[in-house]
């Protein structure tokens, strides 16, 4: 049963931030609430105040330009991202990822900001946005801060964001030329969270060697995990299935998955490797195309 709370409905972002400054840790922010309401119903989260920012149009936007890249307002829904032509054109992997995120109903009401703030290690956007070198802008009444997303998550359901801060914007740079990015999660039901997931981004030099790569594992530890050892291994190398397998092997070694009823730790490590290998191949081939 959901515990009683005082409902705060700010008229503007400014007001929201000052309310947050006032109530800090007694206050929980709700946007789509697709995850929050579940944990509140379970009595795991019992805030004194609930600050509702779902209706703040100031934070609901998708903008793109060839210089600064993509900017997503925090209250932009998953469905708006999934349906955006400009994103489909410049970041197809984001659309593909969103298309497999939970159900249409959840994507219709749930928001990108809420998803990242919830910081569920099994969340889909985290790994993909990290692979795309995305960052997140948070703000309080007094200041704004920008974190690269791969530094944003600190632990299970925990981020760098302070209690008096809101997620304002997600920023994704324009991918370099000859870049490919791919993401896939391993699950038994299409719409489920990943038992484990792998997001890979590869940028190639003109000679076809790897200029830069990012390998990010989802639900393979407390936070999305970058497999830096494998990333370094790839730089300067050419397209090579054995190389992809080697990177996969490193991924399965360098993750820290936890066993549950859906898969043992060994299975999770194994599949993390397999999917990393596959996504690496897919991303690389995209980059070559």
């Amino acid at each position, binding site marked *: 049963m959901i515990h009683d709370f005082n*409902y705060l409905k700010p008229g503007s972002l400014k007001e929201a931030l000052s309310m947050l400054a006032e109530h800090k840790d007694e206050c929980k922010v709700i946007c789509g609430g697709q995850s929050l309401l579940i944990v509140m119903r*379970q009595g795991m989260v019992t805030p004194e105040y609930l600050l509702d920012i779902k209706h703040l149009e100031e934070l609901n936007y998708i903008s793109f330009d060839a210089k600064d890249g993509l900017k997503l307002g925090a209250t932009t829904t998953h469905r708006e991202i999934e349906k955006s032509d400009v994103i489909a054109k410049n970041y197809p992997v984001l659309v593909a990822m969103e298309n497999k995120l939970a159900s249409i109903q959840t994507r219709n009401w749930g928001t990108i900001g809420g998803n990242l703030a919830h910081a569920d290690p099994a969340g889909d956007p985290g790994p993909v946005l990290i692979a795309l070198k995305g960052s997140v802008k948070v703000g309080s009444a007094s200041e704004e801060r920008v974190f690269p997303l791969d530094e944003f998550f600190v632990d299970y359901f925990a981020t760098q964001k302070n209690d008096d801060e809101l997620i304002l914007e997600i920023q994704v740079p324009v991918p370099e030329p000859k870049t490919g990015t791919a993401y896939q999660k391993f699950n038994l039901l299409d*719409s489920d969270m990943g038992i484990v997931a792998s997001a890979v981004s590869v940028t190639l030099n003109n000679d076809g060697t790897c200029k830069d790569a990012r390998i990010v594992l989802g639900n393979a530890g407390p936070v999305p995990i970058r497999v830096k050892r494998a990333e370094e291994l790839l730089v300067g190398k050419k397209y090579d299935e054995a190389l992809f397998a080697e990177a996969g092997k490193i991924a399965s070694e360098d993750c820290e998955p936890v066993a549950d009823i859906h898969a043992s730790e060994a299975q999770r490590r194994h599949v993390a490797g397999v999917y990393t290998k596959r996504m690496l191949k897919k991303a690389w081939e995209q980059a070559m195309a």
Partner: protein
Amino acid sequence: MEKRLLKLSVNGEKYEVYINPKTLLVEVIRDHLGFTGTKRGCETVSCGACTVNIGDMSVKSCSVLAVQVEGLNVTTAEGLEKDGKLSDVQVAFLDQGAYQCGFCTSGMLMSATALLKENEGKTLTEHQIREGIEGNICRCTGYNSIVRAIDAVAQGKYKEA
């Protein structure tokens, strides 16, 4: 905690209810307004039995705070028929036997309605239809009769001649 006045429109009628802010949309629809066609099948936003449409957009009404739909138009299964005439989707469900126990049917109809509205004039692949009802669990039918029903409407088989 003070109660709040919520104004919303359900199935074309305007309503005003005083609610505890923690009240879920499904509770307003079922318990305050008595539209019991909308069901609840879980506590984890998994089953979709509580699916209603806000505007043309499907949501799970157990995962939406009622206060968040202030001033919005909500449609439930009871709102699909117009003056006693069933909507195409409802008729298609009858023709295909796309329901058995019927407990998931209201939510399923809302997902189907939203999916068809969103894709009006476009062709729908079988896979798109299946993804369109992915958020709704049906334990009885195995979904295929539901997919056939939605497909029949998408194919325009129920267009007025």
